[in-house]
Structure formats: C-alpha cells, structure tokens
C-alpha cells in the first residue's frame, strides 16, 4: 500500500513539474492579494500590523480554495481515476497520496513565503514564528477538508463554486484559531491553546476526511 501511495505521489509530482503553472498559481494569488492590500487600504504601519495575520490567513485560505478544483478533475476526465479505484488498494490511501501532493504543491510554498509577506505587512517579528507554525499545522487541514469537497464534485461540470460552498464552513474554525494565535502572540500571551486546537483539527481531519473523500469518489465514479 505504501508502494501504491508512493507511485501516485511520484506520478503527480512529475505531472506538476511538467506543468508548473498549477503550482505557481496559488502562490502568485497569495502574494498578489497581500501586496495589493496596503495599496487599497492604507500603507500606515500601525493599521497594517493589526490586520496582517488576518490578511495572510485569508489569502492562504482563498489560495487553497482556488487550487482544490484540480485535485481529482484531471484524473476523472482521462479515466485515471477509475484505474486508481479499481486497484486492490484502499481508496483512502489514494486520497491521502493526493492530499500530500496538494499540500506540497499549494500549501507548503505559502507557508514558506508567509514570513516574508508578513514582514511586508509590518507584523511584529515576535509573532512571525506563531504565524509560521499556525500555517504549518493549518494548511494540511485545509487540504484535507478540501479533498472531501473536491471529491464530492468530481463528476460535476462546474464544481468550483460548489466546492467553496461545501468547504468554506469547515475552513472557518481553522481561520479563527490561526488568526487568534497570532493576535495572542502580538500581545505577548501564550499561544499553546490555539496551537492545540489547530493540532486537534488536523488530527480530526486526518481521521475523517480520507474515508469521507474516498466514499465520495466511489459514489461519483458510479454515477459517471
């Protein structure tokens, strides 16, 4: 089964490398939103530093949301998905492999860029490790919840909007605790509680979403 997951991950990373636009798109969106925000609102440092955490988190969330549509779509369209589901390996292993690739491609680059863009928004340097850690725990959760939405709409022609509707409510708690942690760090308060909640959500997502997305994929395939 690990061999199966490895081969799916290898294949998908190879596909991304051949088609790097898919990887760059969410990142460009993320950086653009954050770069445009001070121009639209106000370049004043005191105002920006207050809103920095929220802006970074919202941009990360929307960038993830934008990249979800392609998670299973290409595999569904060219018949790869039915081959992947016909194997003797469990479908949740396929979901986990796809989510790992999705996070490596769309989540991890955002996490790596976040200290830079946070500095651009005058976020106090003390709070940056908290932002980084929060995103590091939070973005895999976003990818996992997103996989359920993407799996549910695989057979639907224009499912992009539908994914947002399905997934956004699940993203709100991650957003609240993620920004809450940074706000606490700015005030010099302990952030352990926030991180524990983010971690708990990641564990919950890891337990529930691969199974849910696998079921949704199978049902979607049966309709097609």
């Amino acid at each position, binding site marked *: 089964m690990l*061999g*199966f997951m490895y*081969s*799916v991950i*290898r*294949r998908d990373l*190879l*596909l991304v490398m*051949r*088609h790097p636009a898919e990887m760059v798109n969410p990142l460009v969106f993320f950086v653009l939103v954050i770069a445009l925000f001070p121009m639209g609102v106000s370049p004043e440092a005191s105002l920006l530093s207050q809103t920095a955490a929220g802006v970074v988190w919202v941009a990360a969330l929307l960038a993830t949301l934008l990249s979800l549509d392609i998670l299973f779509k*290409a595999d569904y*369209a*060219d*018949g*790869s998905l*039915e*081959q*992947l*589901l*016909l*194997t*003797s*390996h469990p479908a949740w292993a396929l979901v986990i492999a796809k989510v790992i690739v999705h996070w490596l491609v769309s989540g991890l680059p955002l996490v790596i860029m976040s200290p830079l863009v946070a500095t651009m928004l005058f976020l106090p340097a003390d709070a940056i490790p908290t932002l980084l850690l929060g995103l590091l725990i939070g973005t895999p959760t976003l990818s996992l919840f997103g996989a359920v939405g993407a799996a549910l709409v695989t057979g639907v022609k224009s499912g992009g909007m539908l994914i947002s509707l399905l997934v956004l409510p699940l993203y709100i708690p991650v957003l609240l605790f993620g920004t809450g942690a940074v706000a606490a760090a700015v005030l010099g308060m302990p952030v352990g509680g926030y991180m524990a909640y983010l971690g708990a959500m990641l564990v919950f997502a890891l337990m529930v979403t691969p199974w849910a997305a696998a079921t949704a994929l199978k049902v979607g*395939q*049966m309709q097609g």
Partner: protein
Amino acid sequence: MPSTMPDILLQALDLACERDERMLFKGLNLTVKAGEIWHIKGPNGAGKTSLLRQIAGLLPIFQGNVSFPLDQSILYIGHKSAIKDQLSANENLAWLTALGVPSDENQRYRALEKVGLRGYEETMSAQLSAGQRRRVALARLHLNAAPLWLLDEPLTAMDKQGIADEQAWFADHLKQGGAIVLTSHQDLDIPGVQILDLHAAMETASC
C-alpha cells in the same frame, strides 16, 4: 473429470442495468470460462459499456449479481484510456502497472515494441496520435498477468494492421488460459468467439 472442465472466471446472473430511469438490459446471464472470448454487441446506447463497468465494479448493480469464482485479478481498459498527456509512454505504463504488479523499464520497452511503438518510448503522450495513445494503453496487455480482460472498444482508432495484431494477442491470451470480454462494433476474426447481443437479448426479454 472435473480437471478437464475449464475454470469459470466470471459468472453474471440475472443482471439488470438501469440508467436515467431507462432499462438497458435485464435478466442477463453470462458465464465466462477460461479460454473464452466474449464479444458484446449492440447498437449505441444498448448498455455495452455499462455491462462492462458493472462487471468491473465501476457501476452499481441494481439486480442480479456478478461473481468471480477464482477471485482472480482483472484488467479493465475503458473507453477513456487513462493516458496522461504530460507523461511519456514509458512513464504512463510505469504508473499504470504500479497499481497492480510493478514492471521494470525493460519489460515496458518490450511491451511498447510489441504494440509497435518502438522509438516512441520517451515521447510525450500529448504528441502521439489517437491510435498511438490507444496502443500505449494496450501495451498493458503485455505487462499484466490478470487472467480476465475487460476491454471497452479496444479496436477503435487502430489501423488495419493494429486490429490484426490485437486479435493475435487476444488469441495468445486465450491459449494461455485467459478469458476476454470486450465490446466492439467490428466483427472479430478469432475462432470460437462467443457473441452476446444486448439488443437481441432485450427483445426476447420484453416479449
């Protein structure tokens, strides 16, 4: 005495299929033994693909059941060939075989040579013609030990020579004790081919 009887690889009993509230077929029985090739015929929309997908487990079964007495592995090649544009022929075969029994590069090169794609091993699939892409998908026939093949329209997009070659591969597989169920609009030139006409089956059922 029992040892001389060919093994039953697939048994479908009283199978029915309904798509969009239309009954495509019902009361369908099919027994596929080792060494047999079944050609599913019928006009467009008769349910040929649906029947294959039901057997493969890709469509729900409304009525009846499908069983595999030997619990053997199956190779299903659908109408959508699962070939990725951005991967070469060799890379496509690598991931497709890794789903079952992984293959090494020598085996894949040999399989591609058998399907007439020598020299195209590292060509991106986006640059291959429809028939060549079909051949990449069919190279899986030479890399897979599954005794039962379910092939949806394996002859489309193939040239004359390709169709003749393909039927020779089918005959080889049958000789080795395998079995094949396929759909096609063309007549097959293989001795002993059994025909299941969905259109005719439906007519007699409704009388």
